[in-house]
């Protein structure tokens, strides 16, 4: 491990000051991804800004119809509030429960999961279909970004070196909607996502009134799948329409991975089909 310096911030104010002052820094909180990269020498020579003690960023609260989660909340912190979450965000809870192991959920934070920009991040697809907004702060300004627009490439996010993700907010979906999530993985714990899908669906009389779909692991980053959504809106939920969606979804995904080896293409076909079957219901 090769680190230049470590700065510890106790408050948001201290943190954005440190970020403004020092270039070439990485923010660390749970460290479940960053420490591995440091140990393996994938990241070298940078300074760390440790935000793990910033208590004001560790919260889960419901204000009116909106849920706010502080970026420094661990997966376990959020899951401890499970009982106050409405049923309509069940898939968000399931996504957090599918993260790693109890030890990883106790250390890893939701802010870290988002800012890593991993295409396989478990918490992101549900947050995309919930239309979550990210509040980002720097010494100069505070801004709000749609989570969907936050991801720019594999591991690349819309966050300046002087900026800090403060919180994640989303509106509770209406009572007729349900949020389904499926993570396709090899085993039942400590498993890396092969592909995941979140769908926020409103079904009335077996007709899909509205649907939002987001995937992880089928693109360079987690994305909203509008093309897939349009194939289902207004349609009856039957095997024929579902099969049409599944076949189209495979084509959509295959287009993105044209240059990849055949084994990988087969894997993605199987995972998108299996995961979609689990969430469109």
């Amino acid at each position, binding site marked *: 491990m090769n680190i230049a310096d470590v700065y510890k911030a106790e408050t948001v104010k201290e943190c954005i000051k440190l970020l403004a002052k020092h270039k070439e820094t990485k923010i660390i909180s749970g460290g479940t991804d960053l420490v591995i990269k440091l140990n393996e020498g994938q990241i070298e020579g940078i300074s760390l800004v440790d935000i793990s003690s910033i208590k004001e960023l560790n919260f889960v609260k419901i204000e009116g119809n909106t849920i706010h989660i502080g970026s420094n909340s661990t997966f376990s912190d959020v899951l401890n509030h499970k009982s106050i979450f409405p049923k309509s965000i069940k898939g968000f809870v399931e996504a957090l429960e599918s993260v790693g*192991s109890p030890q990883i959920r106790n250390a890893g934070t939701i802010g870290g999961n988002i800012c890593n920009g991993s295409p396989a991040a478990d918490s992101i697809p549900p947050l995309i279909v919930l239309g979550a907004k990210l509040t980002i702060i720097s010494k100069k300004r505070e801004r709000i970004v749609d989570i969907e627009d936050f991801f720019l490439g594999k591991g690349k996010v819309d966050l300046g070196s002087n900026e800090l993700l403060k919180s994640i907010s989303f509106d509770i979906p209406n009572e007729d909607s349900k949020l389904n999530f499926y993570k*396709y993985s*090899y*085993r*039942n*714990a*400590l*498993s*890396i996502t092969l592909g995941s899908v979140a769908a926020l669906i409103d079904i009335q009389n077996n007709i899909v009134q509205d649907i939002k779909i987001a995937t992880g692991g089928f693109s360079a980053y987690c994305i909203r799948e509008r093309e897939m959504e349009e194939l289902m809106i207004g349609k009856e939920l039957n095997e024929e329409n579902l099969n049409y969606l599944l076949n189209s979804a495979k084509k959509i995904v295959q287009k993105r991975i044209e240059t990849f080896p055949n084994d990988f293409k*087969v*894997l993605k*076909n*199987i*995972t998108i*089909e*299996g*995961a979609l*079957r*689990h969430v469109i219901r």
Partner: protein
Amino acid sequence: MDKLNIVGKSSFRVDGIDKISGRSIYPQDIKLKEMFHAVTLRSTVPHATFTLNTEKASKMSGVVKIFTAHDVTGKNEHGVLFKDHQVFMDRKINRIGDPLALVVAETLKEAKVAMKEIEVLYNELPGVFCPLEAMNEDAPKIHGDSNIIANMKLEKGTVDFSKCDVVVENTFKVPMVEHAFLQPESAVSYIEDDKLVVISSTQYPHWDRFELSLALGLKEENIKVLNAAVGGAFGGREDITSQIHVALATKTLKKPVKITYGREESFLAHSKRHPMTIRMKIGALKDGKITAMKNEILADSGAYASWAPSVLRKAMTHSTGPYEIENVKVNAKSVYTNNPFTGAMRGFGATQVAVGYEQIIDQLAEELGISTYEIREKNILRIGSKTGTSQTMYNSVPVDRCLEAVKKEMEIIKKKPVNKDMLTGYGIALSIYGTGYGNGFPDVSSNIAKINSDGKIEIFSGFTEVGQGAKTVMAQIASEVFNTSSSNIIINCEDTDKVPDSGTAAASRQTYNTGNAVKKSCEKLKDIILNLAQKELGLNNNIGLEVKDELVYLRTLPSMEITFKDLFSKYKDELSSKGKFVAQTTQMDDLSQGAPYWPYGFNALGVKVEIDPATGRINVVDGVFAQDVGRAINPRLVEGQMDGGFVMGLGYALYEDINLVDGEIKNRKFSSYIIPTAKDMPTLKKIIIEDPEETGPFGAKGIGESVTIPAAPAILNAIYDASKVRFTKLPVTPIEFMKKFGNKYD
């Protein structure tokens, strides 16, 4: 048999508190004054000649010395059967991961930085990675003129399938897999009173001492091996690794040296399970009686032989399963390739072949139109049966009882509700495992029992506690003889200077072999004590003298007593006794007929699986496991082995595969090499079947390997039951399942 007081009770593990409280000392935990740190430079290509330039690296900050083949002070070779490994490579690289040099520096960081500065120039040679191709005459040769290490045959009766009413055949492919023990290799060495001391985590300290003496050019009496706590082994610690390098460095530098592998290096350093291609053909009469079986086995030994002939022999002799078959023919080969080397792993060849014989017998039952239970009931070994090697089963053959117990429980399991969204299936498997090195090889355990100055019983024996519970079992055997609590027995097993050789913690042999030696020495010591007590108490004879809680008393007049401590004060030198046990096996003839192993252990397993038809995710959700143990010395430890063995077999069936590309392990991390977790494990009902083995200590047999064998075939049979797809290649990952199920993705 007399009533037993300690044997059969689930005593708490002797090493339990230390293990769960973190007090156990592993080599990783040891820090000595002025200790140097070492790292190993390993080859990155599979087949090449090479030159090294260490000039720049040796001048780096903190570097003490860089060791290469030139610095080996004894013979630059090692190996459990053949000396085909080198301490450091001097001629030719045979696999990715061969050790080229050892950088010793003042700090670990300096050693790592310097290692990057060693220049390696490879002159790559064509490699061979497929065992079938490796047998071609023009294939690149790994060692010598031929890549074939062993070519064995077994013949019993005359195989003639035209006499059978039903014949089925299939080819099974089992992958190379990793032991995945939790504690990676680590070793520390230092000099103490002119003696070289090596601390490591090994399965056989006395063998390590012998190999060190050859490679270092030292006499064995000038080396002491101390076995620290061992974080799992499963066969992966039988071939020497890190300890030979630190020992050489300490011998030369006269300073303590430590080495610890990370997970990725651990994947590279030790052996793997032999991948095998197993072709089986089996024939039966209309009534279900199996009359002929013909098997062909091809095993990939990788770059080194390790235990190749022994593993192959076990695979060949066990390929008929726990069944009596009149006519058998088997051909088995093991070959060198440029893949990672394979060797001992839980089941030692017997695990691989069970994937075949337990599936093909289900296929046969289907062809015959009889149940999977009926076909087994008709063919299993019973008292008086003869195995494929014509060995007579004369006692303790409770295969029928194992099968019956599983059948009964599976009826209950089948009545439980099923998940309608899932494909549900049920499968069973039986297995057989013969204990010991076998084939007439002298399989010896030695032991000394003594009374110490506190009047306590001390056991001295070179067995190793690798997690299987050997320390607890030996203490229970000794305490049974002396009628005292097992916590009063002092076990010494870690120091080669103090304890006699008791062989490897391998081949499921410690409970049976060393257990017998411990029992013998304790019984002899008890006789000595009774005779001395008779003398001290002024009695006419020793009739009616009993021992209990470290004293001797007269049953008819209990106040007439003398403590072991008092006896020690007078007869110190007499209170010691040796015990030795040699297992009875014979060397087989040219057609592999004979009595190669003893005793044999059996089991039966039934499982329920659920398969998600949308994703191919397979979960084992219920199961029942009946295990023959002869007699359970410690039932809770037996159940622990059953759970552990099952989960290892579960990984074999569903998850694990060393992903090789031109000899390179691509998934050498636990994030990419998938082993089961607690959440993948069903609640398993465990039934211990007791049918005492006449020659075992209190009737006990070893079960360490047996418990892992039936898991994979039972799961595969259940997958077939659920999906009607027969998987012959492991592992059945969700992707592999979906490719075959419905043929949608081919």
